[in-house]
């Protein structure tokens, strides 16, 4: 009888130990996950603050036309046909003085070439 009781006690203790072990593993796993999630969120928030930092500074700089870049790209559009007209008119100008006024208007249109 005594032997049987001790046997049951041992089995019960073992079951309790297993349950405790499972609970501990479960808690540790989830707390690890939570801390990982928190670290990811923290990193994301730091990135967002860096974004806001540079955006706000850029806006403030824009208010005084301040830019960190040393150079800027400018694009010039050239109308080739007009340019050819100009060059041909220049040649004609040298040979024929009567066409000067006409070509004068063409050369002024070529000045529409603009810098952006």
């Amino acid at each position, binding site marked *: 009888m005594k032997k049987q009781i001790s046997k049951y006690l041992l089995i019960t203790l073992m079951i309790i130990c297993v349950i405790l072990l499972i609970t501990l593993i479960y808690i540790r796993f989830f707390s690890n996950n939570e801390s990982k999630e928190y670290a990811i*969120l*923290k990193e*994301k*928030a*730091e990135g*967002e*603050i860096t*974004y*806001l*930092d*540079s*955006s*706000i*500074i*850029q*806006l*403030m*700089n*824009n*208010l*005084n*036309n*301040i*830019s*960190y*870049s*040393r*150079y*800027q*790209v*400018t*694009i*010039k*559009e*050239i*109308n*080739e*046909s*007009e340019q050819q007209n100009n060059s041909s008119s220049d040649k004609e100008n040298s040979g024929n003085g009567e066409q000067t006024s006409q070509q004068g208007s063409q050369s002024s249109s070529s000045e529409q070439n603009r*810098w952006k």
Partner: protein
Amino acid sequence: MSKQVSKEAKVVVVNKIGGNEQSSNQSGGSSGETSNASESTNQSEARTSRLAQVDSLLNSNYDDIPWDEISYGVETMYTAWPSISIDMQALNVNESDISSFSTTLDGVAQAVKAGDKNSALINLYNLYALLPKYLSYFSSDESKLNIYNTKAYVLSSYVSANSANWEEMNTNVTNAINTLSKNMQTEGISNIEKSTLEKSYVLLEELKRGVSLEDKEIFYMKYKLAMEQLEIL
């Protein structure tokens, strides 16, 4: 513009547009327009791209403000803010601090809409001042906080420059120097970090000297150099 042309550094690309020579790397809208033009008038156009030096801040026109660009930047911030505020809430940032960002952003938008430079500068600075506050809720990195606070002091002096409040500017730049010097005293920083910090420190000292000259243009030039360096940190 003619100033930029005269200061051009070198020719980068020459693209021919029109007929079969239309360049593939042109933006959709502009190339469409030019090809239509070439069909109707049977002309070909060429584009030359050049690198030109940016105007010096010493001779810059400070009243020519690119409001369109600024309003676009504010709109972008409005787009980003909802998700940022959710993350801040998740990191237990105070609700009133989060809502004050929205309120101040509205103030920036109103100032930009009205074309009020001074109000826009003040509101933008108030926005910036919230950033180290947010960071302090979830980051224990003191050196990072010091850098944000240093930049906040420099920006504060930049705002005061608009109203030529030289005394306040001097106080703010001094505070910036003192805040940054805390980082220089921290142990265990690498040589590269140390040299970057030292350069920033020297540039802030230069900025302080610029304030004592009471010359806006020189201050802006030195501010640009100091801020550019602080952004690397």
